[in-house]
């Protein structure tokens, strides 16, 4: 679960940085990832379908593989600028630091886990 959350927050960081970089692009709509809860996890595991390449001559899909977690477009933005841009910089910044904290939390969890393994291996000696 901690590893999943790491993956998820890394991917979310990417999506948020796209939003922030495009904060002045006309007609840009902000994206976000679906929040990581059990329901969404179960759904995404079930709906993962990919085309199989049965022959070496088959072309790989041209679009780079999107991450394992689903990206959604903000449907009801808080505000949109006159040029059709829907990125709210403040919102994105808070989401960014939130994601960073979650990432650090997961890292700490993994660290604790490793420590426990270390203790267990020491006990054998």
């Amino acid at each position, binding site marked *: 679960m901690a590893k999943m959350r790491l993956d998820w927050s890394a991917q979310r960081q990417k999506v948020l940085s796209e939003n922030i970089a*495009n904060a002045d692009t006309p007609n840009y709509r902000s994206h976000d990832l679906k929040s990581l809860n059990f329901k969404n996890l179960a759904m995404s595991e079930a709906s993962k379908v990919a085309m199989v390449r049965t022959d070496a001559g088959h072309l790989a899909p041209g679009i780079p593989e999107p991450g394992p977690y689903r990206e959604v477009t903000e449907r009801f933005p808080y505000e949109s600028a006159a040029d059709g841009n829907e990125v709210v910089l403040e919102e994105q910044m808070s989401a960014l630091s939130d994601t960073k904290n979650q990432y650090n939390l997961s890292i700490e969890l993994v660290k604790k886990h490793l420590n426990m393994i270390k203790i267990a291996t020491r006990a054998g000696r």
Partner: protein
Amino acid sequence: MDELKQTAAIATSGLKAQTERLRTIAQNMANADSMAERQGEDPYRRRVVTFKSVMDREVGAEMVRTGRVREDMSAFTRKYDPSHPGADAEGYVLAPNVNPMVEMMDMREAQRSYEANLNVITATREMTRNTLELLRS
């Protein structure tokens, strides 16, 4: 390319785009008094940077690029200065359509966006550093 690297690449593209914008603003400000040199000629025309989001295949994400630098086609202002070589019969010279207030606002906006992108890079760096810390424990 992992996601944190992609994040840094995207934020860097944002930084570059905002720098380009700031450069154009500086050009406008510097030329705010470049009047028409001779009668019938046009003075300096304000330039505007356009942004667009581009799918970068190498990075695998939507980056931001500056599009063509376009000219602002709004009307020139007129200034009364009979001694100027570019003055017409009534003593008016065509002055650039640069409004220093608008440019200042634009500059502040570019600055804020630049800072936001910089914050993204800082956050990403911290995340990467914490990941590397795992090796040390």
